[in-house]
């Protein structure tokens, strides 16, 4: 009986200790000789409150990994555990704002889907828009906003899910450097304030070194975790600081080796 008790407490503790746990996750698309092994036995554990950046050459299955973690697709093998109720929040490079809804309508949609009352929703939407500094733009249409603002709306909409885990698939990839820099600050602030766990996919190594507590490198076809490194730079950080640049250079070197090894 004591062993049972022990094992159950251990199990409880272990799920407390990880916000995201992928164990031996593989994903194969198609069958036979044409099958593409997007991911091969990937194991990755992300601690609560940790900010992990996944980097890798294009086609290394980073996006596949995120959509599996978000529950949009099922793995061919392995298990995935994500903290929180329901599926975790996922954000793409494309803000995918619904063009027939206003900014407030977009941010309010997930709340509405959860059946939140109108009054409560209005207050919550206002609060979420304040978080991303867009409170004056509530009544605007998505096409009236700049790319950076649209991505902020998408971020506010995603935060509305109140998921402890935020999965981000190159969310700032389409933005100019200045806007991206500002959004890095914002994301870092929101991450700290809300004690979120973030898995952030990017191919921009500087961005990874600027944001991450840890950088994980994926190889391509099949995608495997080949290398990882903690980022031990004090926050707040600057993307143009020498420390960030040094780590970015190191990651770039590893990435180059990886790409060369695959003969591409």
């Amino acid at each position, binding site marked *: 009986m004591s062993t049972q008790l022990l094992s159950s407490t251990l199990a409880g503790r272990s799920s407390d200790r990880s916000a995201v746990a992928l164990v031996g996750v593989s994903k194969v698309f198609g069958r036979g000789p044409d099958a593409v092994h997007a991911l091969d036995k990937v194991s990755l554990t992300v601690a609560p409150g940790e900010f992990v950046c996944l980097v890798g050459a294009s086609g290394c299955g980073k996006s596949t990994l995120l959509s599996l973690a978000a529950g949009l697709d099922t793995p061919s093998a392995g298990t995935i555990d994500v903290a929180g109720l329901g*599926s975790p929040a996922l954000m793409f490079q494309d803000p995918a704002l619904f063009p027939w809804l206003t900014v407030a309508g977009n941010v309010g949609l997930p709340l509405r889907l959860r059946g939140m009352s109108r009054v409560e929703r209005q207050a919550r939407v206002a609060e979420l828009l304040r978080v991303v500094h867009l409170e004056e733009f509530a009544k605007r249409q998505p096409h009236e906003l700049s790319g950076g603002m649209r991505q902020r709306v998408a971020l506010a909409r995603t935060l509305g899910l109140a998921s402890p885990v935020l999965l981000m698939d190159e969310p700032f990839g389409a933005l100019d450097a200045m806007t991206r820099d500002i959004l890095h600050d914002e994301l870092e602030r929101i991450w700290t304030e809300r004690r979120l766990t973030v898995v952030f996919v990017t191919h921009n190594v500087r961005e990874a070194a600027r944001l991450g507590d840890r950088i994980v490198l994926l190889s391509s076809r099949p995608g495997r975790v080949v290398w990882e490194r903690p980022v031990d730079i004090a926050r707040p950080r600057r993307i143009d600081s020498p420390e960030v640049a040094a780590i970015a250079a190191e990651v770039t070197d590893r990435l180059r080796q990886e790409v060369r090894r695959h003969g591409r």
Partner: protein
Amino acid sequence: MSKHDNPSTHHSDVLKPGPPAPVAPPRRRVGRRAPVALLIPAALGLAFLVLPLAGLLVRAPWSTLPQRLVAPGVLTALRLSLLTATIATVVCVVLGVPLAWVLARVDFRGRRIVRALITVPLVLPPVVGGVALLLVFGRKGIVGGWLNETFGITLAFTTAGVVIAEAFVAMPFLVIAVEGALRGADERYEEAAATLGAGRWTTFRRVTLPLVAPGVAAGAVLCWARALGEFGATITFAGNFPGRTQTMPLAVYLALEKDLESAIVLSLILLAVSVTILATLRDRWINTP
């Protein structure tokens, strides 16, 4: 995540015979004249489409027009036409949009065959469609016989029969338009909705439907126009009873046998009403970005 991302092979295949093609310069249309070889047939095509309509206007009995307009049968036929075409469109939307969704989003065996079957009413002569409807929904038909015996409902040669005939002929227009819109719709929105916690039905209602609303509107307009002009299936399946099944096209045909001028008047009314409504809807729905 590798799809078929190898367009380079395609290109090189295409370009193999000649020297490498230079990058196309940005298109310049301004100042270039359309070739005569295209302009002449284009003008002929336009004349071919517009002249008959002009003929109607020229031959119209303008002096007696007002009293002909208020002749007893005219308004009845017009009202019946508008009513049945509208109900038929509603029926087509209610059944056709889900059908289009299944065709566009669900992968199943025999999808091609189903799609081909749906387009059959497009190529079928409407009279043949009317005969087919009689065989199924007629008083002695497979479904019609059962309806008649069980509920005492008769569809053939009634106003409901007009709606059925019109819906049968018009539905493919709607299904094709909506399916096209669904295939063209960006699936990222539906994916985003899924990540925001929407189930499939909610996603359909809140995301897919607003996304393809212009396509549904365009399809409904086509559908309505087709239903309004329906003749062959209607006269075969619903007959030609004034006040009950005699729609405008039927009234035109009947008038033609007795009195050419009233046929012209009826045609003009049908033309004016449909052009007005289509133009209004077009501005309101179809041209929105």
